[in-house]
């Protein structure tokens, strides 16, 4: 298991390095069109061939990885902040605020995730500029993905509310913000971190689903979702294996996250 963990960390580091230095590593810009070579097979010039518009697939995969890997954690951070506010405050206060917050959370959770995403995404402009579409996609993910985490955080906050630690802290004169900063936030930190890490692969997969359905990041900006749209034109696995590379990369990255999340200290 230790070897698997090390391999997962190594893979994530390599992918993150490639994405971070895409400008240096990629043979061309993600939008540059090699008009003389559309739909080209892999070669030394184009390691993963080119797409219908003659854009280098390897370059697009690197830039797409950068967008997906940079923004999924940001969306996860946003959703965890929201979850901490809703779940943490509700659990800490208890009583009717907790009941109302948890009822709202339950209502949120009763909608299948993809349905909710699709509905809210459709209310926002679909023909937005590429950068705006990136922001819209990941903000939607972040703003809608808080409910499951809020439940867990609320349970943790409730346990803290009824614990002796709080009683002792109050007896020593800690109140208000000081109590929150010194006792409450450190107590919640491991749960927040675990929920944050759990959310990242969920958001990567959600962005990929939205992208394949044509509701994610707009062209010409690449993301894993928009790169996977090419699978739609695939006629066989063996014939054009290079088109499956972005999917393979996504699966490997998400699997690496899952392996790291299975570590007991994170799971706890």
């Amino acid at each position: 298991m230790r070897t698997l963990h090390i391999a997962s960390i190594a893979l994530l580091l390599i992918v993150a390095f490639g994405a971070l230095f895409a400008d240096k590593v990629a043979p061309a810009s993600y939008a540059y069109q090699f008009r003389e070579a559309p739909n080209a097979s892999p070669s030394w010039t184009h390691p993963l061939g080119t797409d219908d518009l003659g854009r280098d697939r390897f370059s697009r995969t690197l830039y797409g990885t950068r967008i997906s890997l940079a923004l999924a954690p940001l969306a996860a951070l946003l959703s965890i902040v929201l979850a901490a506010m809703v779940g943490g405050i509700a659990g800490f206060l208890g009583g009717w605020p907790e009941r109302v917050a948890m009822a709202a959370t339950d209502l949120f959770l009763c909608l299948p995730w993809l349905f909710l995403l699709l509905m809210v995404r459709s209310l926002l402009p679909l023909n937005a500029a590429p950068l705006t579409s990136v922001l819209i996609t990941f903000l939607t993910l972040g703003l809608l993905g808080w409910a499951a985490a809020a439940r867990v955080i609320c349970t943790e906050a409730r346990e803290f509310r009824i614990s002796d630690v709080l009683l002792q802290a109050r007896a020593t004169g800690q109140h208000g913000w000081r109590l929150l900063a010194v006792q409450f936030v450190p107590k919640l930190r491991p749960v927040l971190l675990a929920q944050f890490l759990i959310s990242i692969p969920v958001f990567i997969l959600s962005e990929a689903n939205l992208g394949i359905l044509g509701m994610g990041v707009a062209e010409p900006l690449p993301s894993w979702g928009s790169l996977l749209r090419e699978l739609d034109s695939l006629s066989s696995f063996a014939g054009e294996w290079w088109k499956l590379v972005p999917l393979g990369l996504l699966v490997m990255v998400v699997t690496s996250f899952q392996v790291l999340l299975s570590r007991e200290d994170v799971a706890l």
Partner: protein
Amino acid sequence: MLKRLAIRVVAIVVTILVGLLVSATMVRMAPGFESDEHQLDAHLSPETIASLKAHRLANRKLASFYLTYIKHSVRGDLGYSTALGRPVREVIGERIAETLKICSFGIGVGCTLGFLLAFVTGMSRSSAWDVLVGGIASLFLCIPIAALALIFVLIRRPAGLAIAAVIFPTVYRYARNVLARTFAMPHVITAMAKGCGPIRVLTWHVIPVCAAQFMAIAGISVSLALSASIPIESLCGIPGIGQLALQSALARDLPVLVTLTVVIATITIFANSLSDLVPATVRSRQS
């Protein structure tokens, strides 16, 4: 028991009402709500255009809009699809059967496979088997549902199997954990030590303990299947409500989309309530 049932019924009704209110707000707040494209039709008389405007303006106040929306919904009038130009009820009605068919097939196959493999893992206690099946389940969990749908189109397998491929890993992982905990319980260890056969241990000592949790897992799978139906139906060309949801989203057909959301939420809550109530009923009869 009756109290539990009443709470569930109230939860379903409240969800529908809140869902309708949220839906109504979304439709009301959507850009272009107060204008009608018919107002641009040069063939219409000024009186007709004035009448159309008056009709739109009558819905301007949010409170009256809510009440009208709910009153119409209660009567079964769910509005008109702006993209298809047909009543929403009719559009959803003719497609829901297809979705229910592939979802029930997917849930059936996915749950059966997930539970069976979890039972085999629990009974065999072979770490190699556990790693193998766990690895396959994890792999399926790491593939986006839409990509899974495309793969199933490519290998020419039924869409229901794609839904099963989405459900099986989740069911397997939950069921495996539940079974592992149950197999470690003192009464199960005692039964095995006394020489009970594997089938007897399973049917008499393990399943009765896990039944409620298994039902809960089956309840979750309904939500998973409905969620998966959007990309799977869209990419496999199946005329169900999943495909309709995507078409409505792309066409910003809000009346269809919000009604679908309420319908889906109701089905999900109903399934979860059922999976919660059935074991409770069995337990109360046993006691």
